[in-house]
């Protein structure tokens, strides 16, 4: 037996006899393609083609298809093509292959590129409107659930709320402290480094204090929570949706917003201000350490400068923003989670969307608050 496939072509007058030999199997596919291409011209020129299969030692679907393709190429323009000497144990496969690929669907017409762009633009416009609608709907549903809880406080899912607080509040503290500590230290270092040139080193403390309390503390923490807890919410709710757990809840007469979403969003609204506070303190502490070891400023002086530089207003401006940012993160994360469809891919996509969208909205919200506080003189 041959270990390599062969294809012997013997033309006799206008007839062509093809003798495939050896193993015509998928493992030899590149050789099979070369062989079938090499006789292509001969097949086109001859009037009748005979395929003698008696030398084939092994055959699988791929090999059978390559041979069938040759015979179809021969028979396509009204010429004759036939198989002879097909071994018994190959005949089933050959018959099967003869049935396939008979009806190739017409290829889809290539779309107009301009129309395609316009279509995308239109779709994203409609999509943006839909996003806003879904956001508002979720906000409304949450509000209704909240009213329900206020009317019957016992219906609050306390266990769930505490558990979520533990997960997104308590467990987030180490990483929040670490990051904000580093951010505070970096700001202080940069302040000392650059302000030193015009002898305004002591103003570094003002900068660190105001920046951290008004903006950075809450913003960094909100972004971290959006990445850490918002993504977890989306993935959880999404996989619940995928496995029809959300539907199961609804059929038991329970409102998924009440059972699943309210405790999560409420936990975020409670936890984020606390985390923002802890984060701000860690940042101030980081700034203080840099002031001592890099700027040469005694801790007592740092604290005294801080005391002069910042007021309760700065703290209020920062901490007031936190619950609103938490609400935005929670609503986006939960509504994106409920938009997950059947596939695992959609879960990943919705989680990404959730994080990107909530970080974007948090920053936009921060900007709006900055304008608001500036105009009321805070």
């Amino acid at each position, binding site marked *: 037996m041959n270990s390599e496939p062969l294809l012997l072509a013997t033309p006799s007058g206008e007839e062509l006899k093809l003798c495939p030999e050896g193993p015509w199997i998928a*493992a030899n596919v590149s050789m099979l393609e070369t062989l079938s291409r090499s006789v292509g011209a001969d097949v086109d020129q001859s009037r009748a083609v005979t395929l003698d299969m008696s030398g084939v030692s092994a055959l699988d679907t791929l090999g059978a*298809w390559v041979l069938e393709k040759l015979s179809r190429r021969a028979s396509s323009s009204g010429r004759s093509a036939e198989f002879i000497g097909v071994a018994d144990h190959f005949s089933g496969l050959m*018959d099967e292959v003869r049935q396939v690929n008979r009806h190739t669907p017409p290829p889809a017409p290539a779309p107009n590129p301009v129309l395609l762009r316009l279509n995308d633009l239109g779709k994203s416009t409609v999509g943006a409107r839909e996003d806003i609608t879904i956001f508002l709907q979720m906000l409304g549903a949450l509000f209704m659930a909240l009213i329900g809880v206020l009317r019957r406080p016992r219906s609050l899912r306390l266990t769930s709320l505490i558990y979520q607080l533990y997960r997104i509040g308590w467990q987030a503290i180490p990483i929040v402290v670490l990051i904000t500590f580093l951010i505070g230290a970096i700001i202080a270092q940069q302040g000392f480094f650059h302000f030193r040139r015009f002898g305004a080193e002591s103003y570094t403390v003002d900068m660190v204090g105001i920046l951290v309390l008004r903006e950075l503390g809450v913003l960094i923490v909100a972004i971290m929570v959006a990445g850490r807890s918002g993504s977890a919410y989306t993935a959880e709710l999404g996989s619940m949706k995928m496995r029809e757990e959300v539907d199961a809840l609804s059929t038991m007469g329970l409102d998924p917003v009440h059972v699943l979403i309210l405790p999560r969003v409420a936990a975020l609204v409670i936890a984020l201000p606390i985390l923002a506070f802890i984060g701000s303190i860690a940042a101030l502490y980081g700034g203080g350490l840099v002031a001592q070891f890099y700027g040469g400023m005694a801790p007592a002086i740092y604290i005294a400068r801080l005391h002069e530089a910042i007021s309760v207003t700065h703290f209020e401006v920062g901490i007031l923003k936190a619950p609103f940012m938490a609400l935005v993160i929670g609503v986006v994360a939960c509504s994106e989670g409920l938009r997950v469809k059947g596939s695992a891919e959609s879960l990943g996509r919705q989680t990404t969307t959730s994080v990107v969208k909530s970080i974007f909205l948090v920053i936009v919200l921060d900007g709006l608050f900055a304008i608001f506080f500036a105009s009321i003189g805070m």
Partner: protein
Amino acid sequence: MGESQEQFAIRVRDLVVGFGRQTVLDHLSLDVRRGEILGLVGASGGGKSVLMRTIIGLIPRQGGTIEVTGRPIGGRTEGAATTWGILFQQGALFSSLTVRQNIQFPLRENLVLSQELMDEIAIAKLEMVGLRAQDADKYPAELSGGMTKRVALARALALDPPILFLDEPTSGLDPIAAGDFDALIGTLQKTLGLTVFMVTHDLASLTTVCDRVAALADGKIVAIGPMRELLQSEHPWVRAYFHGKRSQMLQHEMR
């Protein structure tokens, strides 16, 4: 050795598999003959899927030997895709690829061939499992349960492997679809000369397509043979399985 290579597709000897302290398979031995359809039955959680997954190398074994087409299996097997095709219970289609790409995946990874031929082979496989060329550009999420199983079968058969593993192929299908699927497996087995190892609970499949049935209980194969012989088995678990109320009813209908 030469003889066993001809005769047996899979030989399992004294296989021991366990998780932690629990032993799931306890010195299990099983031979699957070349070219037969072997059905494996057993209690839920009794180790049927564990046995299948151990043979294909997904679960490490603690003892014993496994030979597939005469070669011992150990650790990760290179060229596994050309030795066997596997139909997972839920299909396990790659959700980010279309049906066509799913079927082409093993071809693309194992062979060097032109895109044109690859497309034709994919459509050929699709039509062999009873689907139409129009379904080739759908995504797995758009398929019904029966179609998913068929596409998964087409992917398992993409490289014409000599051995096909099926994990509950008819679960979740309606009786008509399940019957069609059984017939399809029978036809493909004949045309492609496959050895089929099928884990199933479906008594109809066992009766209609399986050449032999093996019963797994207490971590061992307690009975093996054609369905007729198993029905006469004296083993208490096998009796309970085939002579329970549900089974009795079905067998009565079939006679």
